[in-house]
C-alpha cells in the first residue's frame, strides 16, 4: 500500500511537473494544465493510475485549505458587510440557473424530480476552479471578483440543503442517516457555536503556546491539524467541509497569527488544489462519453449556454467594468465539485438511475475542462480587442496602504514604532516573539506573528503598498536576509535599517540601504555628553558642539573606511589614523574655545 502511495505520488507529481509548465507556456493557465495532466494519467489516458476516486477525496482537502485561507483574509466585520451580496447575488444566481436548467429539462421531457436535482446540482460552480482562475488573473480585488466570490460562498452554503432534500425526493427506503432532522439541526448549531467559542478562547492561546516553542514545523503541523479537524467535524454534522474551514479562517482573520498561518499553508493549498484538478481530470469517464458522445456533448453545450446566459444577465446588474461581463459569466459557468456529491446522493436515493448519474458527472467534469479553455479564448479576444476595461481597481481586501512596515519590534523597533504611531503613521509590525506581540496588542498595535525574512510574509503584510520598511531585527543574518528579500521583490521600497555593529553597517551599505543608524551610537554619545557636563562640570554648550563635531566626523570616517572593510589590516590602520585625527581636531577646537580671550564671543 505504501509502496503504491509513493508510486502514485511520483505519477501525480511527475505529470504536474511536466504538463503544468507546458500549459503555462502555451498561455493555458495552471488549472487547465492540471486537468489535462489528470486526463493523461487517468484510466482513459495512459492508465498510470487506475482509480481517481481516492485521489479526489484526498484532494478535496485542497479546496478546504483554499477556503480556510480565504477566510483568513476576511475579518468577521467584513464578512458581515458582505452578507447582502452573498445572499442577494448568490441567491439570485442559484435560483436563476437552477430555474433555467429545470425549465429546459422539463421541456425536454425529463421527469421533474431528476430535472430539479440536476438543475440544482448544476447551478453550483467549482469554487476551486473559479477562485484559482480569479487569482490567476488578479481579479480577486475587482468588483467582478468580489461578486464571484460572494456567489461561490453562497453556493457552499446552499449545497447543504440541496444534499438534504435529495432523500426526500427519493424512493422512501433506507435513506442512509435519515435520523431526526431536529437532532441534525441541533448538531449543526452546536458545532457552529462551539467553533466560535473555541476560535476565541481556545485556538488563539494554543497558537500562542505553540508559537512560543519557536519550532516552525510544529506550528505548521498545528495549522494543518486545525484545518483538518474542523473539516472532519463539519463532515460529521453533515455540513460542507469547505464552509467549515472558511468559517474557521474568518474566526482567525483578526488574529496576529494570520500571516504565519497563511505562509505556512500556502504551499499545501497549491499542491492539494493541483491534485484536486488532476483528480477531476482523471474522473472524466470516457466510457460513458464514448457510448453516447452526441448526448454528452449536447448536454454540456446546453448546460453551459443556459448557465452563461443567466450569469451574463445577472452580471448586467453588477458594478462590473465594461467588457468583463462575459468573463464573469464564464468564470462561474462550470459545474462544481458539489455536483458530484449531490448526484452521488441522488443515485443513492434512487432519484437518478446510475446511468443518469454517471452521464451528469461526466458533463460536470467536461464543463470544468471547457471553462478554462473558454476563458483563455476570451482573454485572447480581449487582448486582441485591446479592451480598455482592464484597469485594476484599488485592492480592497488588504487595507494596508500607505503604511510603514516595522520588522522586529524589540527594544529598538519598538521606539521607532511608537514614535511613528504617535505621529499617526499607519504601522504594520512583524515580530516572531509571541510575548512581545501579546503586550503590543494590548496597546492596540497591529502586530503580526511571523518570520519577517520570508518574502511571502512581506507580501502578506502589504509590502507592495508600503511607503517604507524599517529593519530593526536583532539578528544580523536575518536583518540582511530581509533586506535582500526587499531588494529583490520590492526594489522601490525604501529601507531604513538598524545596524548592530560596524561590519553590519557596511553589509547594509553593500545592499544600498537608504538610511542606516548604528543602534548604540546616538545613545552612547548622549551619555558621553552627560559625563562631560554633569560629571566633569564642563560647559554644556561647548560639549554639545564637540559632540556634534564628533558625530559628523565619525560618520565621514565610517564612510571613508567603507571600501577597506573587508581588508582587516588596511581597515585597522585607516580607522586608527582617523581616530587620531579626530582627537587632535577636537582638542584643538576645545582649546580655542576654552581660552580666556578669544576673537569671537569676547
Amino acid at each position, binding site marked *: 500500500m505504501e509502496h503504491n502511495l509513493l508510486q502514485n505520488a511520483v505519477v501525480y507529481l511527475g505529470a504536474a511537473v511536466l504538463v503544468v509548465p507546458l500549459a503555462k507556456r502555451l498561455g493555458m493557465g495552471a488549472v487547465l494544465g492540471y486537468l489535462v495532466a489528470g486526463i493523461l494519467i487517468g484510466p482513459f489516458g495512459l492508465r498510470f493510475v487506475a482509480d481517481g476516486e481516492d485521489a479526489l477525496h484526498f484532494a478535496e482537502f485542497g479546496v478546504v485549505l483554499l477556503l480556510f485561507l480565504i477566510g483568513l483574509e476576511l475579518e468577521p466585520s467584513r464578512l458581515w458587510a458582505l452578507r447582502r451580496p452573498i445572499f442577494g447575488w448568490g441567491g439570485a444566481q442559484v435560483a436563476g440557473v437552477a430555474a433555467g436548467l429545470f425549465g429546459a429539462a422539463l421541456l425536454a421531457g425529463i421527469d421533474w424530480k431528476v430535472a430539479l436535482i440536476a438543475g440544482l446540482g448544476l447551478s453550483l460552480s467549482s469554487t476551486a476552479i473559479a477562485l484559482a482562475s480569479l487569482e490567476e488573473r488578479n481579479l480577486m480585488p475587482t468588483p467582478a471578483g468580489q461578486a464571484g466570490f460572494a456567489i461561490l460562498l453562497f453556493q457552499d452554503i446552499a449545497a447543504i440543503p440541496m444534499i438534504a432534500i435529495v432523500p426526500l425526493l427519493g424512493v422512501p427506503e433506507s435513506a442512509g442517516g435519515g435520523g431526526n432532522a431536529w437532532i441534525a439541526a441541533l448538531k449543526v448549531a452546536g458545532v457552529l457555536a462551539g467553533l466560535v467559542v473555541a476560535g476565541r478562547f481556545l485556538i488563539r492561546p494554543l497558537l500562542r503556546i505553540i508559537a512560543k516553542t519557536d519550532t516552525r514545523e510544529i506550528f505548521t503541523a498545528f495549522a494543518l491539524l486545525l484545518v483538518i479537524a474542523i473539516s472532519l467535524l463539519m463532515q460529521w454534522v453533515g455540513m460542507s467541509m469547505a464552509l467549515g474551514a472558511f468559517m474557521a479562517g474568518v474566526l482567525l482573520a483578526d488574529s496576529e497569527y494570520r500571516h504565519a498561518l497563511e505562509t505556512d499553508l500556502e504551499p499545501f493549498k497549491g499542491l492539494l488544489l493541483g491534485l484536486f484538478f488532476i483528480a477531476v481530470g482523471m474522473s472524466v469517464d470516457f466510457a460513458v462519453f464514448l457510448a453516447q458522445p452526441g448526448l454528452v456533448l449536447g448536454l454540456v453545450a446546453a448546460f453551459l449556454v443556459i448557465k452563461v446566459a443567466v450569469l451574463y444577465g445577472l452580471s448586467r446588474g453588477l458594478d462590473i467594468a465594461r467588457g468583463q461581463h462575459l468573463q464573469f459569466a464564464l468564470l462561474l459557468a462550470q459545474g462544481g465539485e458539489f455536483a458530484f456529491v449531490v448526484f452521488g446522493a441522488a443515485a443513492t436515493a434512487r432519484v437518478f438511475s446510475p446511468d443518469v448519474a454517471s452521464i451528469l458527472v461526466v458533463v460536470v467534469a467536461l464543463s470544468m475542462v471547457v471553462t478554462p479553455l473558454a476563458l483563455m479564448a476570451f482573454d485572447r479576444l480581449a487582448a486582441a480587442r485591446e479592451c480598455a476595461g482592464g484597469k485594476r481597481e484599488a485592492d480592497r481586501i488588504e487595507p494596508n496602504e500607505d503604511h510603514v512596515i516595522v520588522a522586529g519590534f524589540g527594544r529598538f523597533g519598538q521606539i521607532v514604532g511608537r514614535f511613528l504611531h504617535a505621529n499617526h503613521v499607519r504601522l504594520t509590525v512583524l515580530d516572531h516573539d509571541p510575548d512581545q506581540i501579546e503586550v503590543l496588542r494590548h496597546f492596540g498595535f497591529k502586530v503580526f506573528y511571523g518570520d519577517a525574512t520570508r518574502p511571502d510574509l512581506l507580501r502578506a503584510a502589504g509590502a507592495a503598498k508600503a511607503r517604507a520598511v524599517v529593519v530593526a531585527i536583532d539578528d544580523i543574518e536575518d536583518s540582511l536576509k530581509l533586506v535582500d528579500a526587499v531588494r529583490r521583490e520590492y526594489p522601490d521600497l525604501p529601507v531604513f535599517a538598524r545596524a548592530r555593529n560596524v561590519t553590519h553597517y557596511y553589509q547594509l551599505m553593500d545592499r544600498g540601504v537608504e538610511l542606516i543608524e548604528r543602534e548604540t551610537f546616538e545613545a552612547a554619545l548622549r551619555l558621553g555628553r552627560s559625563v562631560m557636563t554633569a560629571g566633569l562640570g564642563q560647559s554644556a554648550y561647548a560639549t554639545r558642539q564637540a559632540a*556634534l563635531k564628533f558625530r*559628523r566626523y565619525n560618520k565621514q570616517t565610517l564612510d571613508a573606511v567603507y571600501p577597506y572593510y573587508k581588508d582587516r589590516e588596511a581597515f585597522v590602520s585607516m580607522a586608527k589614523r582617523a581616530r587620531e585625527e579626530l582627537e587632535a581636531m577636537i582638542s584643538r577646537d576645545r582649546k580655542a574655545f576654552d581660552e580666556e580671550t578669544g*576673537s*569671537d564671543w569676547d
Partner: protein
Amino acid sequence: MNEPNILVVFAHPAPHRSPVHRSLAETARALPGVELRDLYELYPDFDIDGERERELLRAAHLLVFLHPFRWYGMPALVKEWMDVLLQPGWAYNDDNHTGECALRGKSFWLVTTTGSGPDAYQPGGLHGRPFTDFLAPYEATAALCGMDWIAPLVMHGSAQATPEAVDALAAEFRRRLEGYAGLANAAAEERAHGT
C-alpha cells in the same frame, strides 16, 4: 560661469504656513546660477556644517537672506548660521588678524516679509518705529564685512497677501535676481582683468 554666483540663505521654520515664502523659495531654486540653502531643512538640529557653508558663501557674489521677520529680527537658525560662518579673520578683519576678508566686495540683499501692515511701523504705530530701524544689525554686518548694501525687498502684511500679490512679489524677485546674475558676471570679469 558654472559656479552659482548667487547664494540664497532661506530660513522658514514652518514653510507650510507661508505661501509667500514657498513661492519665493521656489522662484530662487528654479533659476540657474542660484544656490538656495534651505536652512531649516538642512540643519533641523541646528548643527550647521560651517566649512561646507563657507565654501558656498565664498563662491557667491551676492548673498541673499530670504526669511520672515519675527520679533524684529531673523529666525534663530539664520543667527546661528551667522555665528558659525562669520568668523573673525575669515569674514572680516579685526585688529589681531590679518584675515582673508572673504566677503569683501560681495553684495548683500535682504528679502523679507512682516505680518503687520506698513502702518504698524511708524512712531505711534504698533511697533513704534520705522521698519528701517530694525535693519541696523544687517546693515552693520554688511558694512563690517565690506559688503555692498542693496535696498531690501520687503512685503508688509504678508499674512493677508492675495495670491496675485504673492505672484507679483515672486515675479519681482525673479527679475531682480536675473538682473543681478548678469551684473555679477560682468563685475567678476572686470575684477579678473582689472586691479
